[in-house]
């Protein structure tokens, strides 16, 4: 390809929107030497904390390594690892480096490598070659520590020029979670399907994202002008002025139409025939709460508590630290009901948290969600204590992730009651009732939803996992992302079963998967009897509008006809038709291009 010539690449659209900016390759950066820069006084504690985190990650890794070596009977190697583990506590590694960071006010990597270099020099002077060789152990350890420092820091988002379009091989959730939408204007990755967690976060933050681009081939394009079209999945490199102008115009148009939508979020959400619908927000970050209120949700339908601590890379977070976070959550939610989903870890979400536990061949089918919490009751109890202390009289409800069996639900409820009794006995909190809800995301509980509903105060259908478990398709696999979507009749029938049962027992049920933020699915869901939706705050205006354009009776008919269908393609087609019909504009001018546009919408969700 020639320098400066406009050319286009086709990827898979993941998060909609248009981004215009300069490319920034994060993998290209990672291979370079150790970053060195000075830090401000108020960043010192943060740097030190980052350093401690790297050390504790190292410890976890070494312990894991040690266990493996032990099981293979390699005692000599175990000794070496043992002394490395000991060295992690060495004052020269701990206190000395921390003091230096405080003193010289430079980033951890720079200070740490300077300390090691100093040490190296002393060893070089030794006459005894045997001791000189001991340096190997220390250098090995220091490499490991630096690896952890830089791995977590591979993407130092504060260093990315504002407005960049970030190119990476893949994004892990803690990276995407750490990004402020104001800094990064778009993402391009090689792997990561439309339903990966990184994609969910990008969508929630309104960052356009295109995947399935062979990033390695374009490493030499650092700092080039890029247009990213999150609608079509197109990447335009070195755009000509005409192209640029056209996209700028599209971008402004998208912005204005969104603003118009936002203006009527304050009104009640009713269907054309006056059926009241409740819209809640999915939130995973305390900083998003303020903006959330602009969209006037009736409450937080899903607070993903594990996202609060993703950057910590561990779930052993002190009760006090969690308490502070939940207090902030309660305060910032300004009195609306908050459903806190207890730590839902595992699967594709945060494998690094699992490092200290057993490696799983199949983490998505492994020890995640409630299974993890019941196996680690201390983590569960600490979280519950912190939540209950922070909740006091606030309308806080508890949601249990990945329930697949009635005993899990009973056991979790027993622990919740125990923790509360303890707190009441200790005089820390006063007795109150917590509503306890159950996530419906594993097919097994759909079939026993009569029993599950009896034991729960409310239900929440998480369609993303329900789709992947029902279809047996990995949702983070890009090859599957075209097929792994909720228009499958099995999923729709399951939603119906659960909603019917919940209605029979008079228990509320909310839909909180991505399906709840896709306007195309809203009429169908309404027709199935759903009247509570929880979605990313940005999608609330779309959902509210979709509800307002729907006639409940028509939605019911739509649902009945779709329940007769067996082909997902047929179902998507029918949904698109119904949705275009419901749009006031297209009723007058039902052009096929409009349908094509909507078709694109279906795919991007």
């Amino acid at each position, binding site marked *: 390809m020639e320098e400066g010539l406009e050319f286009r690449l086709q990827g898979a659209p993941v998060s909609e929107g248009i981004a215009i900016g300069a490319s920034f390759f994060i993998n290209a950066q990672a291979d370079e030497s150790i970053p060195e820069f000075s830090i401000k006084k108020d960043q010192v504690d943060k740097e030190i904390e980052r350093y401690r985190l790297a050390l504790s990650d190292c410890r976890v890794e070494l312990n894991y390594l040690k266990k493996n070596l032990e099981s293979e009977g390699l005692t000599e190697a175990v000794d070496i690892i043992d*002394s490395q583990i000991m060295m992690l506590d060495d*004052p020269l590694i701990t206190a000395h480096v921390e003091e230096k960071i405080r003193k010289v006010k430079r980033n951890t990597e720079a200070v740490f490598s300077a300390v090691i270099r100093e040490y190296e020099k*002393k060893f070089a002077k030794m*006459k005894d070659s045997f001791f000189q060789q001991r340096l190997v152990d220390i250098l090995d350890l220091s490499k490991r520590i630096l690896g952890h420092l830089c791995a977590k820091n591979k993407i130092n988002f504060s260093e990315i020029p504002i407005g960049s379009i970030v190119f990476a091989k893949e994004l892990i959730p803690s990276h995407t979670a750490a990004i402020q939408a104001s800094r990064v204007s778009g993402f391009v990755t090689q792997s990561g399907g439309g339903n990966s967690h990184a994609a969910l976060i990008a969508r929630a933050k309104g960052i356009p994202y295109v995947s399935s681009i062979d990033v390695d081939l374009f490493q030499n394009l650092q700092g080039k002008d890029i247009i990213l079209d999150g609608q079509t999945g197109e990447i335009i490199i070195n755009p000509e002025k005409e192209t640029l102008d056209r996209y700028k115009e599209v971008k402004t148009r998208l912005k204005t139409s969104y603003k118009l939508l936002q203006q009527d979020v304050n009104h009640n959400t009713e269907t054309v025939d006056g059926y009241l619908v409740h819209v809640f927000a999915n939130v995973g970050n305390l900083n998003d709460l303020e903006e959330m209120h602009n969209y006037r949700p009736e409450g937080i339908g899903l607070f993903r508590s594990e996202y609060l601590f993703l950057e910590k890379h561990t779930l052993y977070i002190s009760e006090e630290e969690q308490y502070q976070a939940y207090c902030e959550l309660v305060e910032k939610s300004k009195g609306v009901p908050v459903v806190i989903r207890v730590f839902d870890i595992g699967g594709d979400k945060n494998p690094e948290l699992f490092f200290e536990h057993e490696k799983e061949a199949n983490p998505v089918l492994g020890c995640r969600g409630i299974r993890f919490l019941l196996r680690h009751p201390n983590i569960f109890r600490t979280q519950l204590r912190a939540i209950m202390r922070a909740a006091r009289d606030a309308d806080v409800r508890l949601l249990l992730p990945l329930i697949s069996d009635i005993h899990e639900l009973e056991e979790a409820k027993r622990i919740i009651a125990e923790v509360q009794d303890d707190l009441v006995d200790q005089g820390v909190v006063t007795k109150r009732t917590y509503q306890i809800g159950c996530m419906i995301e594993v097919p097994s509980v759909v079939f026993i939803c009569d029993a599950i509903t009896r034991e729960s105060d409310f239900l929440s259908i998480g369609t993303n996992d329900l789709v992947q478990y029902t279809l047996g398709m990995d949702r983070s696999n890009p090859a599957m992302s075209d097929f792994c979507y909720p228009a499958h009749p099995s999923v729709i029938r399951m939603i119906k079963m659960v909603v019917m049962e919940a209605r029979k027992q008079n228990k509320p049920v909310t839909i909180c998967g991505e399906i709840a933020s896709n306007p195309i699915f809203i009429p169908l869901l309404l027709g199935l009897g759903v009247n509570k939706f929880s979605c990313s705050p940005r999608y609330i205006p779309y959902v509210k509008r979709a509800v307002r354009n729907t006639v409940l009776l028509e939605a019911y008919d739509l649902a009945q006809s779709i329940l007769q269908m067996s082909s997902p393609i047929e179902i998507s087609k029918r949904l698109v038709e119904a949705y275009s019909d419901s749009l006031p504009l297209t009723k007058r001018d039902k052009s096929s291009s409009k349908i094509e546009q909507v078709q694109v919408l279906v795919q991007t969700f």
Partner: protein
Amino acid sequence: MKLSYKIKVKNPLGLHARPATVIVRLIQDAKSSVSFTCHNETVNAKSIMGILMLAAGKNSIVRIDVEGEDAQDVMSKLTEVFENGFGE
């Protein structure tokens, strides 16, 4: 209390990583401060990396300085492991 004692390194490989680990394990929770001096270099004996830095091979003489309330106890533990050559 302040104690000082000179001792010979007896094990064949000197104060390498393993003996250093043994020493640090032995005294890391001690209240006293402990330092080793050898070849005119003084280091914190609660640091493996410090001990390694002494490059104390077989037959070198290490001065152990212990200061603190449990000095007596720390010193006797240390001399014992030095005497038996760290079990090597």
